[in-house]
């Protein structure tokens, strides 16, 4: 090879490839066993009826705890599957738009929008019928749900809601005569 260039080119590519092999693989989909930042205490869970008892349960003592899966795309995708699998979509609609339960996509957060507050809303339940899931769901699943809820309406939201074509909705009832 007459010109010296291939060596330098080779070197650059080799460096790139070496990084590939040592690439840190963070955020594997399953997540390791123990959950960091899980140090939460939860209120007492009433066991009158095996069902989930919706209603007020004493507030949780919350430190300023942040979500260990804050921007982990894998956890957000799992959060989406839990949102559907655990019936959250029943009250809050398939993409969090609201139905029986309030909308999770708008900017109004009745009980606060910090990760710990949303965690508490899920774990402790809220007054008007939000069940307390704390006893039924381990923390790592609740944190994934929190990550999914925070991703609603943002670019990171997995499976965005389908945009429905503007239906030809009758602007005014077709009058027999021109209406004033």
């Amino acid at each position, binding site marked *: 090879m007459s*010109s010296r260039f291939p060596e330098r080119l080779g070197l650059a*590519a080799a460096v790139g490839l070496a990084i590939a*092999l040592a690439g840190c693989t963070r955020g*594997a*989909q399953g997540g390791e066993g123990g959950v960091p930042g899980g140090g939460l205490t939860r209120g007492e869970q009433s066991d009158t009826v095996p069902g989930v008892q919706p209603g007020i349960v004493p507030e949780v003592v919350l430190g300023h705890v942040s979500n260990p899966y804050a921007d982990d795309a894998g956890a957000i*995708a799992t959060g989406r599957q839990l949102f559907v699998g655990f019936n959250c979509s029943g009250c809050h609609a398939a993409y969090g738009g609201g139905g029986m339960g309030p909308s999770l996509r708008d900017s109004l957060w009745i009980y606060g929008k910090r990760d710990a507050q949303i965690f508490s809303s899920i774990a402790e339940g809220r007054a008007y019928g939000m069940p307390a899931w704390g006893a039924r769901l381990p923390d790592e699943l609740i944190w994934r749900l929190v990550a999914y809820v925070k991703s609603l309406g943002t*670019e990171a939201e997995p*499976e965005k809601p389908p945009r429905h074509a503007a239906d030809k909705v009758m602007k005014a009832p077709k009058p027999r005569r021109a209406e004033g």
Partner: protein
Amino acid sequence: MATTAPAIPGRAPDERLHQIWETKPGLLGILGTVDHKEIGRRYLVTSFLFLIAGGLEAVVMRLQLTRSDLRLLQPEQYNQLFTMHGVTMIFWYAAPVLSGFSNFLWPLLIGARDMAFPRLNAYSYWTFLLSGIFLYSSALVGQVPDGGWFAYVPLTRDAFSPGLNMDFYALGLVFLTISTTAGAINFIVTLFKLRAPGMSINRIPLFMWGTLTNSFSVLFALPALTVACVMLYLDRGVGTRFFDPGGGGHPLLWQHLFWIFGHPWVYIIVLPAMGIVSHALPTFCRRPLVGYTTVALATVTTGILGFGVWVHHMFATGLPPLATSFFSAASFAITIPSAIAVFAWIATIWTGRPVVRTPFLFMVGFIVLFVIGGVSGVATAAAAFDQQLTDTYFVVAHIHYVLIGINLFPVVAGIYYWFPKITGRMMSERLGRWNFWTMFLGFNLGFFPMHIAGLLGMPRRIYTYPAGLGWDTVNLITTIGSFVFAAGVLLLVINVIYSRRRGLPAGPNPWDAYSLEWATSSPPPPYNFAVIPTVGSRHPLWEERLDEGGRSILSEGPALDEKGEKETVESSPLDSRLTDVLRMPEDTYYPFLHALAVMLTFYGLLLRSHRVAGVGLLLVALLTAGWLWPARRELREEE
């Protein structure tokens, strides 16, 4: 030639040509060279680095599979490794290495001074390199593609492959298709328009028939891959539902689109390699190839039939038996053109006087592995039995026999054969022999047991397997074999590095070969040929020893050095009569800068930032305009 510029005074014709054609020094030479030989060398080196990367990934995977229940790798890491191994080898090594040979050799083979579009040629290299860096930059953020090299949906949709992993895959492939398509266009036009006078269509070397078929297949097959990858990217991020049954799409749409590209692609990456053997074998058999026309037609037939068999990758997806039978029959039929080629080579060896050198050994090894890979392919063509074979290690064995057998072995033979022409020095024959036997035995020791593992029911792409299923022994042997094979490849690298400095000096034609590239010096001067030769037969350098008739004139012809600008001849497509003289572009930064702008756009798309993508596109538009802006010289000419 209307006006005659004053010839540069006092310089012999060669110096004048040398001064016109040599690559500019400094940065412009490095980033802006359009010399096909320089681009050819860079293609070869870069694709070999990707080969080594893919090889290291394979070796680490083999360590994990040495025994049952090993815990060297987490499943996520293993999935990333086997995906990157597949993607790197098939996309960033197999096709580019052949482009390396073609870029370096085509002008020399047809007596031209450069490719038809030198700047496009440089551009195809830069987009190839930058797309490779784009793909491997996924390792920096730890989100390496992990969906397998054919990335079936819905696993690779955003719901089950969150993160940027598969966005790197989809965008990286679209980025690479730019390079491959640019290369294909360049080869087609060069072959039909820039041949030396007299080199009619039935006199072009068989290596060029291979690459020509490869180029046409690329033009027809790559759009399917681009469409599929763009759809996947949109499904993952924008919310379209091409592949989601819930939204009116269907997962099999991806499989059909991918394999409509997929199967032609595996012929794309083997036909030029078969061309290398058809081109180099006669030199070592001291006689022309048997049945030139039949082998050329067989090559083209393989390329065409390659578009009609893609469903044999999908025999288990529940398609109706009638459709499956049609594609099974087509897959059986495609074996015949390959059989023709194999027997042409054997006939050439049988009726020739073989001179056993390292390239020849690799070519014989190639024929043996070709046959083994071919017949195991026929076993998978039988739809019924394929429902047992598909997705087991039998198919992995078949893939490696055909890809390493039919692509890597001829490539290594090509390196040993053309190393003297590229560097002017011979590669060491002793090291070559060691290199061949370690690679050949290592390969068979490593990959033949995979047939057995597959027949024992071992599925592919599993990061571990339980004991007690009888797979431990075969996997152990495969790991040992793969290490021996890796040692073989290492020997090749050592031989290349050693011979560049201390190889024996090789004259213009060390093998006493017959084709035009051996009619110029080693390494060839920047202008390839002092004068454009006139070709009289298929074997210009063996005419006097062959009784085929036809006289080539290599010493006289147009020197095209009067105007002090880069020029080469243009000829008619079929019988290559001289029709015009073409002015060729100078070194320029545009290809490199354009490739960078495209890379910026792809990073913008990856990060879903409209601003970055927008800026990238704007740069692309500006640079395209700049690239195509008529140079002042041409303007002056028109007034």
